[in-house]
């Protein structure tokens, strides 16, 4: 068996570190979004200063999450990046195609509830998850 020299940092360890960092940022963003959404009602009785502070923190953590996502994608190898971008493309398409009719149906009271942005976020999350899983299995 001939000797094989491997790359210094190791692809797997770099991806693991990058994914861990991304998960931490995502977790922080979820916490700060919950704080921003429920804090005014349950924690500081709608005090404007605290609400603005919570919004600013949420946006700041959101920017951190975007940068962590960018770093994660840059670490991926070419096949995994392709799978990721394909899933992202499908997600954006589904969001636009489903989001606009959903909003129109709300506008003309076709649906008996308000077209909340939360529904779209859930749909996007599920779409990305399924597309990413499909892409990963396809190239297995």
């Amino acid at each position, binding site marked *: 068996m001939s000797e094989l020299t491997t790359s210094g940092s190791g692809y797997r360890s770099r991806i693991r570190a990058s994914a861990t960092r991304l998960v931490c940022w995502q977790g922080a963003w979820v916490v700060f979004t919950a704080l921003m959404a429920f804090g005014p009602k349950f924690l500081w009785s709608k005090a404007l200063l605290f609400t603005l502070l919570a919004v600013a923190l949420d946006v700041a953590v959101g920017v951190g999450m975007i940068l962590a996502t960018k770093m994660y994608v840059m670490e991926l190898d070419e096949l995994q990046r392709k799978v990721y971008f394909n899933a992202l493309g499908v997600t954006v398409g589904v969001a636009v195609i489903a989001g606009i009719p959903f909003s129109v149906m709300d506008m003309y009271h076709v649906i008996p509830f308000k077209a909340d942005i939360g529904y779209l976020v859930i749909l996007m999350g599920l779409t990305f998850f399924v597309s990413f899983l499909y892409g990963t299995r396809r*190239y297995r």
Partner: protein
Amino acid sequence: MRNRLKVLRAERNWTQAQLADALDVSRQTINAIETGKFDPSLPLAFRAARLFGLRIEEIFHDPALNEDGSNPATKIKRDAYM
């Protein structure tokens, strides 16, 4: 695009994981290239060629070309002028 990656790897008794580490990609990517599901980029093909000590065309083949590497389209054109 066809390739000889699996054969070359087997000749050296390397696992997919070892080759993936050496080329700085995931094992999934090596498997996808070997099974012809994914064509590598030119930089990755160059890395593979360097690793095996071969030229790119000795690892990766264009299925549209003849077995000897000549272009059938060129042959048709040449024949037309003869």
